[in-house]
């Protein structure tokens, strides 16, 4: 009996020799959940089963809240913290928050027009007018002007929007706010907004919007491009600031980030200046405390080091997993910016970020 006990202890000791196992918890956006699952699955292998990440896709709002309440090691959000939130976090915890971009997403106009097989072209003004209810039928001259050669039916338009709060809605309304003063004045941008057209229908989730669009001739909605591609829903091209009609293909989405990035990477990429960028694109962000010891979720330096290593891996090596899952990878400039932010991370004053990133 005693021998058995000793043998078991020895075995256990062997199994846990070397690095101690680290369990990390994150929470937030649902949009990058598939790509994050892939990352964390792969990272378990990369780290020899030492680093397990448990990610709860509860939505960006929930992720930000959990991050502020410090119940998770990191948050994930479709939009970065605003200035007010940044200041609050700094004041309440003593540590600034970092918004680290790691993937790019895009939102596309999806529609159901029986008999029209060509891809339709839209621009910001026309989309804003459609979603405001100013343009009511498909054969409106404003739509026809962008689509010469397409026979548009005289079908009434049904506007389909997300009825649940969503980062997708934020990106979509952020774009419309930038291109249409009327939109900015009447509706604004947010995860949920007050939709005003009379011919509207709200669907729950990407699948709800897509379901209504598919089942309603004359409907137009908006979906994450990943969802639209994977489910083979027809979607339109959108004119960018440079005047080019862009289809939301992965290189065009990545190209949207070819703008001057601010030091903290908190930037709205919609209506991008980039000539070959798709105009309704956005980063998704990892939310991290700069001084990790200020986050109550971190218990030890070993945990903090394992986490910083994971961050570095996510913005560099792991980027190759994005495109097979129809997510756009971040640009080299954004990667450099992300690494610069990671290198600022400290734990109890020790510059672990600089040590791990190596600059």
């Amino acid at each position, binding site marked *: 009996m005693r021998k058995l006990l000793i043998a078991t202890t020895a075995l256990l000791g062997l199994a846990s020799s070397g690095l101690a196992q680290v369990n990390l918890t994150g929470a937030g956006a649902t949009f990058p959940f598939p790509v994050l699952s892939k990352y964390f699955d792969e990272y378990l292998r990369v780290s020899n089963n030492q680093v397990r990440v448990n990610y709860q896709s509860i939505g960006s709002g929930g992720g930000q809240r959990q991050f502020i309440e410090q119940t998770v090691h990191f948050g994930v959000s479709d939009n970065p913290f605003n200035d007010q939130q940044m200041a609050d976090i700094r004041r309440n915890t003593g540590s600034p928050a970092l918004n680290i971009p790691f993937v790019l997403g895009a939102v596309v106009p999806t529609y159901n027009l029986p008999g029209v097989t060509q891809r339709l072209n839209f621009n910001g003004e026309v989309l804003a007018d459609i979603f405001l209810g100013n343009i009511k039928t498909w054969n409106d001259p404003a739509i026809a002007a962008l689509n010469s050669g397409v026979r548009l039916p005289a079908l009434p338009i049904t506007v389909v929007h997300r009825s649940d709060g969503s980062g997708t809605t934020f990106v979509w309304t952020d774009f419309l706010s930038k291109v249409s003063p009327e939109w900015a004045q009447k509706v604004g941008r947010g995860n949920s907004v007050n939709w005003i057209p009379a011919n509207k229908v709200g669907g*729950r989730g990407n699948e709800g919007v897509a379901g209504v669009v598919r089942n309603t001739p004359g409907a137009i909605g908006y979906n994450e491009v990943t969802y639209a591609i994977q489910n083979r829903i027809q979607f339109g091209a959108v004119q960018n600031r440079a005047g080019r009609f862009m289809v939301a293909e992965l290189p065009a989405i990545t190209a949207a980030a070819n703008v001057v990035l601010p030091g903290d990477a908190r930037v709205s990429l919609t209506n991008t200046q980039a000539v070959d960028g798709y105009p309704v694109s956005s980063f998704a962000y990892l939310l991290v405390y700069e001084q990790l010891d200020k986050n109550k979720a971190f218990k030890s330096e070993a945990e903090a080091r394992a986490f910083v290593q994971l961050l570095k891996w996510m913005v560099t090596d792991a980027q190759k997993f994005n495109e097979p899952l129809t997510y756009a990878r971040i640009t080299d400039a954004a990667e450099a910016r992300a690494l610069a932010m990671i290198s600022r991370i400290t734990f109890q004053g020790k510059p672990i970020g600089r040590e791990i990133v190596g600059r």
Partner: protein
Amino acid sequence: MQQAPVQSSIIKQQPSAIYRVLGDRIFLSVVLLLALSIVALTLGLGYYLYLGGSQTINKEGFFGFLTGTTWDPALKLEFGIWPFVLGTLITSLAALVVSVPVALAAAIFTAEYAPRWLAGFINYLVDLMAAVPSVVYGIWGIFVLAPFLREIIYLPAFLWAAENAPGLSPFLGNPAGYGMFTGIVILSSMIIPFTAALSRDAIALVPAAQREGAYALGATRWEVMQTVILPYARGGVFAGAMLALGRALGETMAVAMVIGNGNILPYTLFGPASTMPAVIALEMKEAVEDLHYSAIIGVGFYLFLIAFIVNAAASYLLNKLKVGDQRA
């Protein structure tokens, strides 16, 4: 005399003193404590919902929040829940009106008319309807019911009104298929089993002597139904209807998926509407602004109040409807 030995044997096996003296009191205090915990739970729930929603309720005012008609979480951060309250009440009550006759008919048929095998089969199906998760009803609503209703009711009605009664069109609304009417149909089919099951049991409980008495007096089957069975069973039928109404008021997912989720008043028959549980479920996840988050919890508080009022009214009416010795 002969019972004496039995009695003494009982006395011999007397429980120990602690049970004799304290037994009842311990039992009483345990039961009391558990009963009180339900009271505490309910009041606590209401209190914390109020606390969570107080930021927005204080800003908009207790009645301003209830009667405001603008829900704008993006630009003006203005919150009024009247469209949701109205949507909840209209869909629930309409669903009740639609479902009660169907449920009652099913209950009468299975309890009184149907052969046993058919009654068993119908009852099995009714119970199955109650067991289907609401998200399944929702998916069925999006992909089957809404397009179906659009083709056979909404579009024909809309086109007919456009030609023959243009005054009616504004009341019909957008015939896309996702709106209030579809929500009511979904809700009705979801709550039928509750009314049906309770009505069935109430009808089965009508004493045989009462029926036989009526038959003996020469009453026909219809007359027995009308004068004996339904009056006797109406308490149970009403209880079933109230259970169904409670379920309808709180039903979230299936309604959220088909009702179109529009909060601009006035509502139209076919056009989008919204309900209180739906807006909570849909917007909670991504409510970033504190005021918005608080407003959503505030919706929960008012829903709690409405459920409380409906239940209180129901139990009052239920007591009125009971016959003879059923009355408490």
